[in-house]
C-alpha cells in the first residue's frame, strides 16, 4: 500500500491575509511533484445538511455552479461529477470527496477549508474534502445578501484548492482599526481573504486563476500557445526568497503572478499570452507570510516595490531569456 498523507493544507479566512497562482507540491527523492488529480471526472458528494438560510438543496446547487465555473475553462481539462448526497462528514478518510457544512466556531477566522489525501509517491490526490464553517452566516441569493457570506464565491475558491491550487497573492489589503486586514482588491479568486459579506464577485475566475488551473491540467494547445517568463530576483547580490513577481501584458490587460521559490531568488511564470510583459516585484506584505511558506523559510519582505527595467518577452511555446531583477532594500 502506498503511503498517504492526510492534511488540511488550504484554508480561506475572511480577515487573515495570504498571494498569484501557486501549485501544491510535495518533494519525493529531491524532486518536486505537483499535487494533482490524475483521473477525470472528479466525483464529489454533497453533505445532506443545510444551515439557516441555505437548505441542503440550495447548498448542492450553489456548489454545483462553482464546480461548473472551473469545468467551463476551455484551456484546462477538468471535469466533475456530482455523485449524490451523503451523511458523511468532510475530512473523514473514507475514500470519497465530500463537500459540506460543519460547525467549527473555534476557527473564528476561517470560512472554509480544503483537505486532501495524497499519494506521496506520485502526488496523486486520492480524496479531497471541503468544509464551510457554519459558524458564519451564509447565503445563496442570486445578488448576494449584505449580511451573509456568498457560498458560491467561497466554493469557487475552495474548489481551486480541491484541484491542487494554492493561494495567490495578487491583491491589496489594508489593516483596519481592529487590526484585521480588509481586502481592497484582488486579482485572483485564489486570493486568501474573502471580499466579505454580500460581495459575489468571486463567482467569476480571473486570469491568474485560469492560468493556474490550465497549467496544472492543460487542455488542447495550452502549453504550445502560451509562454514562460523566468528569472531571478536579488537584493544586494543575494537571492530573494518569497518575492511576489507579477507579469502584466499591456495588450491583454492580464495580471499573472508567481513567487520566487528558491533561495537563489528564482521564479517562473507559465501560461502567459505570448508577447512582452511588464514585470513588477513586490514583497509579500498583503498577507500572512506563513500562509504561503514554511515559518522557517527566510522570506524577505524588506525591499521596495519595483518594476523591472526591461520588457520580459514570453515566446509562444517556450521560455524567454532569463531576466534579472534587482530590488532595493526599504
Amino acid at each position: 500500500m502506498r503511503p498517504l498523507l492526510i492534511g488540511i493544507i488550504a484554508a480561506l479566512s475572511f480577515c487573515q491575509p495570504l498571494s498569484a497562482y501557486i501549485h501544491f507540491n510535495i518533494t519525493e527523492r529531491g524532486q518536486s511533484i505537483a499535487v494533482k488529480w490524475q483521473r477525470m471526472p472528479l466525483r464529489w458528494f454533497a453533505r445532506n445538511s443545510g444551515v439557516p438560510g441555505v437548505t441542503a438543496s440550495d447548498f448542492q446547487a450553489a456548489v454545483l455552479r462553482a464546480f461548473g465555473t472551473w469545468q467551463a475553462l476551455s484551456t484546462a481539462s477538468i471535469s466533475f461529477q456530482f455523485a449524490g448526497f451523503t451523511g458523511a462528514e468532510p475530512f473523514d478518510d473514507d475514500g470519497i470527496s465530500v463537500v459540506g457544512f460543519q460547525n467549527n466556531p473555534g476557527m473564528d477566522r476561517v470560512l472554509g477549508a480544503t483537505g486532501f489525501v495524497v499519494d506521496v509517491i506520485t502526488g496523486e490526490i486520492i480524496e479531497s474534502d471541503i468544509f464551510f464553517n457554519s459558524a458564519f452566516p451564509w447565503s445563496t441569493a442570486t445578488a448576494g445578501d449584505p449580511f451573509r457570506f456568498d457560498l458560491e464565491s467561497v466554493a469557487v475558491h475552495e474548489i481551486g484548492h480541491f484541484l491542487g491550487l494554492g493561494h495567490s497573492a495578487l491583491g491589496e489589503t489594508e489593516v483596519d482599526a481592529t487590526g484585521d486586514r480588509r481586502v481592497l482588491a484582488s486579482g485572483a479568486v485564489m486570493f486568501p481573504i474573502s471580499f466579505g459579506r454580500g460581495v459575489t464577485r468571486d463567482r467569476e475566475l480571473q486570469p491568474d486563476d485560469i492560468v493556474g488551473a490550465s497549467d496544472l491540467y492543460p487542455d488542447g494547445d495550452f502549453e504550445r500557445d502560451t509562454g514562460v517568463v523566468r528569472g531571478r530576483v536579488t537584493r544586494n547580490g543575494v537571492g530573494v526568497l518569497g518575492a511576489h513577481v507579477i507579469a502584466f501584458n499591456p495588450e491583454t490587460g492580464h495580471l499573472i503572478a508567481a513567487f520566487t521559490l528558491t533561495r537563489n531568488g528564482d521564479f517562473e511564470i507559465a501560461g502567459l499570452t505570448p508577447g512582452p510583459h511588464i514585470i513588477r516585484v513586490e514583497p509579500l506584505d498583503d498577507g500572512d507570510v506563513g500562509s504561503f511558506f514554511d515559518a522557517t523559510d527566510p522570506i524577505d519582505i524588506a525591499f521596495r516595490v519595483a518594476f523591472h527595467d526591461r520588457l520580459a518577452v514570453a515566446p509562444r511555446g517556450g521560455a524567454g531569456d532569463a531576466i534579472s531583477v534587482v530590488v532595493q532594500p526599504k
Partner: protein
Amino acid sequence: MNLQTALAAMVVFTASAGAIYAQAGVDRPVRRIEADAGAGILSGGGLGSTDANLRRNDPVRQTFRLFATSSDVGRAPLWLVRLAFPLSRRFVVEGALTKATPEVRVSATSDFEGAPSITISETIDQYFVDGSVLIMLDELRIGSRAVPFAAAGAGYLRQLHEGQRLVEQGGVYHAGG
C-alpha cells in the same frame, strides 16, 4: 489598437506609397524587370494606454488600478527593396521587402504601492514582404505621362522581439490604385 496592428498599418502606408510612385512613368517596356531601393521613416505613434486592474472589493463591478501603462512606438528608419515585372503593357506583378527596427516604449506609472515610475524600451526587428498585381488603365491615361492603375495584393508582417525569441506575424491585404 495593439502593437502589431499599428505597425502593420504604418508599413502598408509606406509600401503603398512606394507602389504609387513606381507607376508614375508610362509606356513601360514589357519583359524588363524594374528594381527600386529606397529609404523612409516609419512614423511613430501612440499605442494606447492600459491599466493593470484588480477586482475592487465592492458589490458593483468597479476596478482597482494597481498601476497604469501607456505605450508608443518611436520613429525609425525604414528600408525598402522592390522588384516589378511587367507581364504585358496592362499587367504588372511586383514584390517588395521592407525592414525597420522601431523602438517600442512602455511606461508604467501611478503604482498603488509607490513603485517608481519607469519607461521601458524595446527594439523590434520588423520585416514586411508583400506582392501585388497591378492593372494599368491605359484607356484612362491623363496627359502623356500619367496612367491610372488598379492594384491588389497581400503581405506578410514578421516581428522579432529583442533576443529574437518571440515572433509575431500577421497578414496584410491591400487593394486600391
